[in-house]
């Protein structure tokens, strides 16, 4: 916007994938953005909310790999914002939960630019809603813990508190943890977590490719040894009390409200440097 004296960066949570799970606040920021930087995890129809003349830039950070281009992303954010433009940095799920904002925030702060974080629906909540499984439940699941299955090196973090993760009165959600789950499960079972603890593998939650698999910790540890059909598809692992698994039985509730009428998705390929020319209209 030309009447904005200095640029501004909005770290916007894109939610788990379903464009209907964007917040009104996120839509507002997308509509006003001059430039949108997105990962492959957070693209598709969501970008249709951006203005037709906004720059859409895929920065293609992929889960499970180190990101050598981090400097490049920070540089882009600052370049746009320093030109007085409004920049949206779109992040999958909730940006504050494993969104890896730290480098970009340090860069934006260092450049003296203003920023905000727009919170969103994290994938765990969407997976729970889709499966009809509450994340907490009185008496049986008194807390829920979110951990990552891969740290900055792409490996299982060293500082995981295995005793806490093996607690049967908690629901545990492992983000980006499919590749390392065999090792995690082994360590947890050594801590006393029963192998038949209920588990849920939630792939591509809230998207048309959503796939939910009810299993156990032991069985899942065996199953993940086989590489998935689409290694890039985001996967979430839930295990623990999962109280409703028994109570609701085998009748998961349907995911969410009926399909919504959203504008068609622009044809944007992750990694495109600039997708403006591919947009409709």
């Amino acid at each position: 916007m030309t009447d904005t004296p200095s640029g501004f960066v909005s770290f916007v949570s894109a939610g788990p994938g379903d464009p209907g799970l964007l917040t009104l606040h996120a839509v507002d920021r997308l509509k006003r953005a001059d430039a949108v930087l997105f990962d492959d995890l957070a693209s598709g129809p969501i970008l249709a909310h951006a203005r037709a003349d906004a720059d859409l830039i895929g920065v293609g950070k992929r889960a499970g790999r180190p990101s050598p281009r981090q400097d490049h992303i920070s540089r882009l954010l600052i370049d746009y914002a320093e030109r007085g433009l409004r920049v949206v940095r779109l992040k999958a799920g909730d940006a504050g939960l494993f969104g890896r904002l730290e480098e970009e925030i340090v860069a934006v702060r260092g450049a003296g630019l203003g920023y905000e974080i727009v919170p969103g629906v994290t994938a765990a909540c969407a997976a729970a809603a889709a499966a009809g499984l509450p994340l907490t439940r009185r008496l049986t699941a008194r807390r829920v813990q979110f951990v990552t299955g891969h740290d900055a090196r792409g490996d299982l973090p060293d500082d995981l508190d295995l005793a806490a993760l093996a607690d049967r009165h908690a629901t545990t959600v492992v983000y980006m943890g499919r590749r390392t789950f065999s090792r995690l499960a082994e360590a947890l079972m050594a801590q006393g977590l029963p192998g038949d603890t209920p588990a849920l593998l939630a792939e591509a939650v809230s998207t048309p490719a959503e796939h939910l698999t009810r299993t156990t910790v032991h069985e899942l540890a065996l199953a993940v040894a086989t590489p998935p059909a689409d290694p890039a598809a985001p996967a979430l692992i839930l295990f623990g009390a999962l109280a409703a698994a028994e109570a609701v039985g085998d009748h998961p509730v349907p995911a969410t409200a009926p399909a919504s009428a959203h504008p068609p998705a622009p044809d944007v390929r992750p990694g495109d440097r600039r997708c403006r020319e591919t947009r409709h209209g």
Partner: protein
Amino acid sequence: MRTLPINVRLDGRTVLVVGDGEAAHAKLRLLAKTPARLRVVAPDGWAGLGDWRGRVEVTARAFEPADLAGVALVYAATEDAAADTAVASAARAAGVPVNVVDRPALCDFITPAIVDRDPLSIAICTNGGAPVLGRRLRARIEAWLPQGFGRLVDNAAGFRDRLKAVLPEGADRRRFWDRFFDGAAGDDLLALSDDALGARLERLAQTAAAERDQGKAAGEAGGEVLLVGAGPGDPELLTLKAHRALQQADVIVYDRLVSEDVLDYARRDARFVHVGKRAGHPSWGQAAINDLLIREARAGNRVVRLKSGDPFVFGRAGEEVEDLTAAGVAVSVVPGVTAAAGCAAHSLIPLTHRDHASAVTLVTGQLKGGGAQSWRGLYGPGRTLAVYMGVTTARDIAQGLTGDGAPADLPVAIIERGTQAGERRVYGRLVDLPDLVAVHAIESPAMIVIGEVARLARDWPAEALAPLFADAESRAG
């Protein structure tokens, strides 16, 4: 709202404009789009009003109070302060609503900026505070709203009686219109001719009637319950799906944790049922709430059960889902932004951090149905703890965690009414948590974030980790 927007019928009624300058012409241009009879009183008569021959009736003299006889509205547009004031006083004495151009203080009513898609109209009013802003907003809406929109309204209006015959139930008709206008989000409906629109309406109505009959045959009442996450409080943190569910609800069931602002985003004609604790009302038990949801859904209603934050994080939605499923009621869950995510984002606290936190635990300070929360095993380096409903148990939390090895000076952030108007943030050390709550009179709802990441808050004070009562005496003085 300081003023009430209403639309005034003007067929067969008279509107008087006093004056013949540019201001008067501007008002006449607007009024000429309505079916009102227009009268102008101006000393020079037609001299200044030639353009309006045939549309207005002119009296060529100065204004007199008698001119107000039989007038519905009057505009004072003489561009002379004394003359305009005289018109305003006379109008007030005669009980005729008056608008004095450019003098909001003298106005009984304000003419808003208008987007005209007859019969649809959108009024934008800044109550005289910033008319330029109002006009800019209007320009944006003008650009966004296709010109043919009014025709869509006319076609819908023309179909209402027919639809009543096909779908006698109000709820069925509401669903029909939702479906019809959902299609209108693409401009595709606007491209259709009137005949084609009529055919589409008829076909959709027949489909809806057939679906209703099939549903009845299958023994379904057609009702459903949506457990909807309302987010942490700021209504802008509703998801699009939640917003849509609120707009389409017949019944909305909520409790005190859901912010009033969120309810403002709901369909105004919905029935609102407050099932939380309120002074002077008996509290609803979970069983009574479940019964209500089942009863309303079986009556064919679209029921929204609003839950603060995300329904499946400390929302006790699990029990509601079970009961509804057992009763054969269709249930779906719309996830929401949980309070920890919302409060942390507003404070610019990342819940996870490469260097400080690879795990986050969400925990409640209060266990409903008795039993103390165990604080053992919750603290660890590299972990963030987000405590929901922890205000009344702040002492247990601090003692439990420090007793389990957490450092006394672990950073904590207390976020009261997070994301809502009146949000307050208080920072300090874990060991001081109960005193921070007491000194700042923190009230529920509040989120307590415990861990190194709290230090990254946007307004983390440099002295936050100093003992709270080190300077107790000077503070008391």
